[in-house]
Every structure is written in structure tokens, then in C-alpha cells.
């Protein structure tokens, strides 16, 4: 049976991951200098920018895996009753796509960094528009629920249940 709400830990992880993703999207150029060195066959340069980008990315990955474990173990609350089937499908697809991005983008980034692969680096860079689209869709859906449907969906990410 699905729980009535998210746990405190699930809520905390949700809000902690958000600024981490934002930091790596906004300051993606932190790793540029170090990557240029790797791209030209040099030894990996662990300057502050590279360490910050990789550290934040690894944190997103670890926290996303942790959230996934909680989601599979404890479960998540059902969508509010009365949502049309298409909206339910879109919500599920959106959530799983976010998990795929939170796990896939850092994994590909790590493989690009440690393997020095330009192809994987380009694939990793595609993560930026993907994240922007997914997060924008996630926020738009939450605002739609709050403002148009007025079903109190956003409160579930404020108070544990």
C-alpha cells in the first residue's frame, strides 16, 4: 500500500538535490580548464573547479540512488484522486525520467572524465538541456496542481506524512 505522504528523509533529499543540480548546470564551465587538459591527452587536472563539478555530480548521483532505494522500499504517495489517466502517465514518466537523468548524466560524466572520452563528454553535455526540460516540466506540473487544480500537491514536499 502506498504511504500517505513522503517521509522527512525523502523530502530533505528532494530539496538538497535541487540546488546541487542547479549549481552544476549554472557553473558547468568550472570543469572546462581541467577537461581541456584531459582532452589533449594530459594528466587529469584536479583544480578547484574540476573538484567542485565532479564532487557535486557525485553527490547528485549518490543522493539520487539513495532516493531510488527509498522510493522502491518505502514507496511514494499516490497522485491525488481524480487526475486524468494521461496526467498520471505523464507524472510517472516525468519522475522516472528525472531519476534516469540524475543517475545517467553523472555516470556518463564520470566515464568521460576517467576514460578521457570526448564522445561521452558530448553525451554528458546533452544532460544540460535534458535537465532544464525535465525540471521545467516538473515545476510547471507542480504549479499546475497548486494553482489550477488546487489539490494541495505541493504541500506533500513540505510536510512529512
Amino acid at each position: 500500500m502506498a504511504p500517505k505522504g513522503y517521509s522527512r528523509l525523502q523530502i530533505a533529499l528532494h530539496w538538497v538535490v535541487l540546488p546541487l543540480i542547479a549549481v552544476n548546470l549554472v557553473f558547468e564551465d568550472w570543469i572546462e580548464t581541467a577537461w581541456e587538459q584531459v582532452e589533449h591527452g594530459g594528466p587529469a587536472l584536479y583544480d578547484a573547479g574540476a573538484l567542485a563539478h565532479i564532487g557535486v555530480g557525485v553527490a547528485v548521483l549518490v543522493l539520487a540512488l539513495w532516493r531510488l532505494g527509498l522510493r522502491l522500499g518505502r514507496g511514494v504517495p499516490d497522485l491525488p484522486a481524480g487526475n486524468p489517466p494521461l496526467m498520471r502517465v505523464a507524472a510517472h514518466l516525468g519522475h522516472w525520467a528525472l531519476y534516469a537523468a540524475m543517475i545517467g548524466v553523472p555516470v556518463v560524466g564520470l566515464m568521460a572524465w576517467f576514460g578521457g572520452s570526448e564522445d561521452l563528454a558530448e553525451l554528458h553535455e546533452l544532460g544540460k538541456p535534458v535537465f532544464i526540460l525535465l525540471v521545467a516540466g516538473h515545476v510547471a506540473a507542480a504549479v499546475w496542481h497548486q494553482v489550477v487544480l488546487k489539490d494541495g500537491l505541493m504541500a506533500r514536499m513540505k510536510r512529512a506524512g
Partner: protein
Amino acid sequence: MLRHSLPVFLPLALILSVAGVAYTVTMGHLDPQRLVAAALTGAVLALGVTPLMLRARE
């Protein structure tokens, strides 16, 4: 909690560290700094994979 998680975390950390180093070496990179970083990253990732493994064992 720790007694429950450590037997899963430690082998996972070892496996992911070795996998990280093996991948880096396979891709032709032998500089020690990168190898150590790959090993450490594998160990840190084990922190995230451990809850999944614990869940899978339940």
C-alpha cells in the same frame, strides 16, 4: 543500522573502486592521480548503491 549496512557497503566499495580503476586503465590512463580519484569515486558511489542492495536483499 551500521552493522546491517557495513557488510554490504564494504564489498561494494571494493568492487566499485576496482571497477573504476579497471575502467580508467582500460581507457589507457595510468596517471596515479586519476587512478586514485577513480578508486575513491567508486567507494563514494557505494554509499548510494548500498541502500539499493539492502532493499534488493529484503
